[in-house]
């Protein structure tokens, strides 16, 4: 018995290094009290719909129609001068709006990053933030091309990775992974103008 008692503390004395332990995934936490969220709430008190912190990254959900106000306040007032990324996520079945438009911005003074999210229903326009950050231009074009999200006030909202006349928006969840027949622009006499072959259709009609 006494021997066992001697053995046990020794095992505890040498804990396993973290790479031999089972990994512990981070937990999402409510971040309404987080410093970065409070800064935004101090400027625009009514925009914070939801705030989550996950693995040290703060995500703020804001109303879609206020997105330009929030972005401008973040850039001019709070110092988020750098828009790192702008993209979208398709939640096909979600009732409160199909898409998330995601803004990810950076502040140089203290190297903090903040993610903004706006929920958008299919076919509803989001106001463009190209007036806030010039870099948003191509990112919004890509989100439009890939998801079919329309950005109002965008100077040049054209498709960017696919071509004019391409049918569908490839990163939508209902776009078939094997692709669609894309002869539309090449055979305008076969396919109706602007239409092109319909996803999942038979082809010629």
């Amino acid at each position, binding site marked *: 018995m006494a021997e066992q008692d001697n053995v046990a503390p020794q095992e505890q004395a040498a804990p396993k290094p973290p790479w031999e332990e089972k990994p512990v*995934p*981070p937990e999402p936490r409510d971040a309404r009290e987080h410093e970065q969220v409070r800064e935004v709430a101090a400027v625009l008190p009514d925009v914070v719909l939801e705030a989550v912190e996950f693995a040290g990254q703060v995500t703020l959900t804001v109303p879609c129609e206020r997105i330009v106000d929030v972005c401008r306040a973040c850039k001019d007032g709070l110092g988020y001068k750098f828009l790192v*990324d702008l993209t979208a*996520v398709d939640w096909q079945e979600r009732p409160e709006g199909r898409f998330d438009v995601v803004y990810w911005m950076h502040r140089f003074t203290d190297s903090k990053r903040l993610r903004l999210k706006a929920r958008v229903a299919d076919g509803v326009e989001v106001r463009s933030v190209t007036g806030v950050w010039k*870099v948003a231009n191509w990112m919004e074009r890509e989100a439009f091309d890939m998801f079919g999200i329309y950005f109002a006030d965008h100077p040049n909202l054209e498709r960017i990775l696919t071509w004019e006349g391409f049918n569908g928006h*490839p990163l939508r969840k209902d776009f078939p992974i094997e692709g669609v027949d894309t002869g539309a622009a090449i055979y305008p006499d076969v396919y109706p103008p602007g239409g092109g072959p319909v996803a999942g259709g038979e082809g010629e009609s």
Partner: protein
Amino acid sequence: MSTLQATRPFPDSEEMEISFGPQHPATHGVLRVMVKLDGERIIDAKPIIGYLHRGTEKIFERETYNGTIPHTDRMDYTAAATNNQALVGAVEKMMGVTVPPRAAYIRMVLAELQRIASHIIWLGTHALDIGAQTPFFYTFQEREIILDLYEEYCGARLTLNCMRVGGQPFNLPEGWTDRCRAFVDQLPARIAEWERLLTNNRIWKLRTIGVGVISAANAVEWGLTGPPLRGSGVKWDIRKVFPYDRYDEVDFEIPIGANGDTYDRYLVRMEEMRQSVRIVQQCLAKLPDGPVMAKVPKVIKPPKGEIYFSVEGPKGELGFYVVSDGSTNPYRLRVRPACFINLQVLPELVRGHLVADMIAVIGTLDIVLGEIDR
């Protein structure tokens, strides 16, 4: 446009619109630029991309997490190791995995060798575009040795697929560190050799100084990252700002330029190669023993949530935005492509310059169409 032509005083200086590319070798792949010219002066330029679009982000959604790694190789195909590093880093952060120190150091060695290899391609082709043919032959000799080192490590030379979620798939082969050390020890002399060909070369200076100038404030506004941002004098490097792997344990400098022109970006990249050599030397000296793979589940299943993780790639900030729904496949895997965003600024940089200067600017942005189009 016809009215504009009619009012021009000189009939021989009419405005032309020319499609530059997509098959021109100086556009580094399949970039097409519609340039509006007045004689040889550029009035406006409009990059047209997408010729290499393969739907990588769509493909990601049907792959398992480890299955996405080979697809990242094919984005920026001159820098597969840093692409791998960004993706596995994102998934590891999401799962809370700590990589064993030996694996982290191997990753840093591979990534910095990749940075050197990528800058070597940039230097050779950029100089070739501008008219200096010789550096191309010198630089590609050294790149060959790096590719040999990769081949010895993982069997591939370009599409490496050399990292896994949780660590490294292989340990270093016998004698690899010695060969790698021998290579990096002699590299500074080679870099000095390349610099002798160019840095004080009068033609090189005429072609690059004052070409494609962008101010620091504008560079931030346009979202530039990597050498184009640092060339404008912004001291910003993901390896220092958000250190990943074990970059906080090695010592290196961030070179910056002053004028934000093509020449400064050239100097920044040359210095970056020297700093990469320093990092590799330190990593090889410190390389710890131990396992190269952490204890991760056989089936990679990150929890529900979203994460953005970025590394300092050779071209700029390469990030992955992973949205997981708790299954074995990513629900959405967005790439934050450095080249795509750096290319956007091209019209700003070339307006008012000559067509030949556009070649220099495309070269200095160091774009790879595989990453732009994905």
